[in-house]
């Protein structure tokens, strides 16, 4: 499935494994959280990159100790209006995680910008909408009132702009 990253389609080089699928000798793999807990030692001995599928009923703090070793966290939207993953993504970023956060499942253009703002930077988007629709959707609003969001260079935080002489908030890098 095509992956949207940095406003462009890229090929997905990750191998997504189930709990008992054979672990290949090389390559980047994404495993369920249960398998990460079970096989963390053998998984971290591999040379390829490691990612995890994290359910939105799991608690972010249970992933905290693994984050330095992870390069991708997959958060699944079973329905586009189930907003738990927005909080999880933001929590992971607040823990200092800088790897990929990938949205899968019912991902739609109208929610794309919110996802980018809380720290998602990769999206499994299917083929229902052309790339231009996604690109346009990523920048519908150029302003946000909230502080501490991930944002693109053309986006600004209203409160920060109004009070440029105040002490800066924890600056977030641009998403993607």
């Amino acid at each position: 499935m095509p992956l949207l990253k940095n406003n462009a389609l890229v090929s997905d080089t990750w191998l997504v494994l189930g709990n008992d699928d054979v672990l290949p000798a090389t390559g980047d793999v994404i495993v369920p959280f249960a398998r990460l807990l079970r096989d963390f030692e053998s998984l971290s001995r591999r040379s390829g990159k490691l990612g995890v599928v994290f359910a939105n009923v799991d608690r972010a703090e249970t992933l905290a100790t693994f984050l330095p070793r992870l390069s991708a966290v997959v958060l699944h939207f079973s329905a586009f209006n189930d907003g738990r993953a927005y909080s999880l993504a933001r929590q992971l970023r607040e823990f200092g995680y800088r790897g990929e956060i990938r949205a899968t499942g019912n991902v739609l253009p109208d929610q794309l910008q919110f996802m980018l703002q809380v720290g998602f930077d990769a999206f499994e988007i299917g083929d229902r909408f052309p790339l231009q629709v996604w690109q346009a959707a990523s920048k519908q609003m150029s302003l946000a009132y909230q502080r501490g969001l991930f944002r693109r260079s053309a986006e600004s935080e209203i409160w920060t702009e109004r009070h440029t002489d105040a002490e800066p908030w924890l600056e977030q890098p641009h998403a993607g």
Partner: protein
Amino acid sequence: MYRYDEFDHQFVRERTAQFRDQAERRLRGELTEDEFRPLRLMNGLYLQLHAYMLRVAIPYGTLSGRQMRQLAMIADKYDKGYGHFTTRQNIQYNWIKLEETADILGHLADVEMHAIQTSGNCIRNVTTDHWAGAAADEIADPRPVGELLRQWSSLHPEFSYLPRKFKIAVTGAPHDRAAVKVHDIGLRLHRNAEGKVGWEVIVGGGQGRTPMIGVTVRDFLPEHELIAYLEAIMRVYNLYGRRDNKYKARIKILVHELGAERFKAEVEAEYARKPQASTEVEERELARIAAYFAPPPFERLPRWSAAFEEARLAQPDFARWARNNLAAHKVDGYTIVNISLKPEGGIPGDATGDQMRLMAQLAETYSHDELRVSHAQNIVLPHVKKDDVFAVWQALDAAALATPNYGLAGDIIACPGLDYCALATARSIPVAQSISRKFADIGRQEEIGQIKINISGCINACGHHHVGHIGILGLDKKGEEFYQITLGGSSAEHSSIGTILGPGFAGHEVADAIDKILETYLKIREPGEEFIAAYRRVGPKPFKEALYAAA
């Protein structure tokens, strides 16, 4: 009053353009109705029984004359010449076309208004005391915090797909006119022993099918911490609030199921974990906003107005209206004028375009260009000189806006009910009309005194029946409308949920039943005792006997 700066303007313009695009894609069939629904709801657009309904936000219930005129224009041009003021201090239009909605949002943006988050599972329009900035008993004007919260909650990327809708109310006065204990979050300003002011944070109150009084999670939160603390509460709710059953998805259920202590611990843990950056920006933003709410230039006037007293003596109708519809202002020589939108036999909360324009003009001439919408679906002119009150009354009277029943039996709260609403199980409006006709005699209403009669057309309780001194809930029993009556509810500082009195009544029996309840009250009350106090003293028994014993 708050005024948009360039950022606020641009924000609302971009949002309108975004909605125009979404509506066009829906009309072209590129979005399914399921996908479009949450998008239109977050812009206040509902699909009701007969047409689309657009709910426009009136943040913390405050309007200028210019804004009210624009609401009148929209009523005339896009609706059937009227609008409906709601229990959440908003206005809704019941006959809207999808094709015209983006244009309406554009007209709203012209006067610094919008319909953002008046619906949907997100943080709704923040409500507050309709006498804010004017009430004699106020500690501080709560509207700057209301505006801060409006901005913070607008298109919040983390909290736009919550388990369920989320309502925040704020009060800056000890007498609670904002019903903070029956909101998802209630904020109450108070003074501590050292004379400092801080915010009590109350979580998990609500009405609906499971009415609950909220619990205090922080007793004294400093103002500059409000945003960060609310983020922690919202995150706990967003992550752990139930999503398996929409009837158990409000935060009150989470608080109840976890227990107040565990819920509090979750919030405090989340708050402690948050990157504790400086709150300097929030403090400065609040100061910037507060400057807009500086009191208008009041004149130094004597407390006593000769013109007012003379008019009262000369005009008994004016005297009666003044007795019932005015409230104490914090500045000598001024008064708060409450305009009842509850004429005998009328639809509670409805106003025509012409009436809106008249109220706008009165606000511009006599009330420092300010109007308020109250959660009881009335309009307030907050700053009127006593010397001018008679002129205001004459103008109101000529426009059928001088009903002298503010706070009395005819001042009924009612949801739109089955006449409009797709969720309703029974009609509310005809019941309200029949009660107001039953109590058409204002003299009798005055004898009965302060009473809140609230009517909801379904268990969702938009008409606040749980907190009515007398609550009426319309239900459907095998295709027939019937109405349950509750007594003893209150949304004031000693909040309580009403209890069901007994078997329900058919629609045409309700007004008589209310009459019997109030007759009973008149018999048992002690001198000066209001209905709710009498009920709390004697309990339901005498009322039950009056209603059911004979049968």
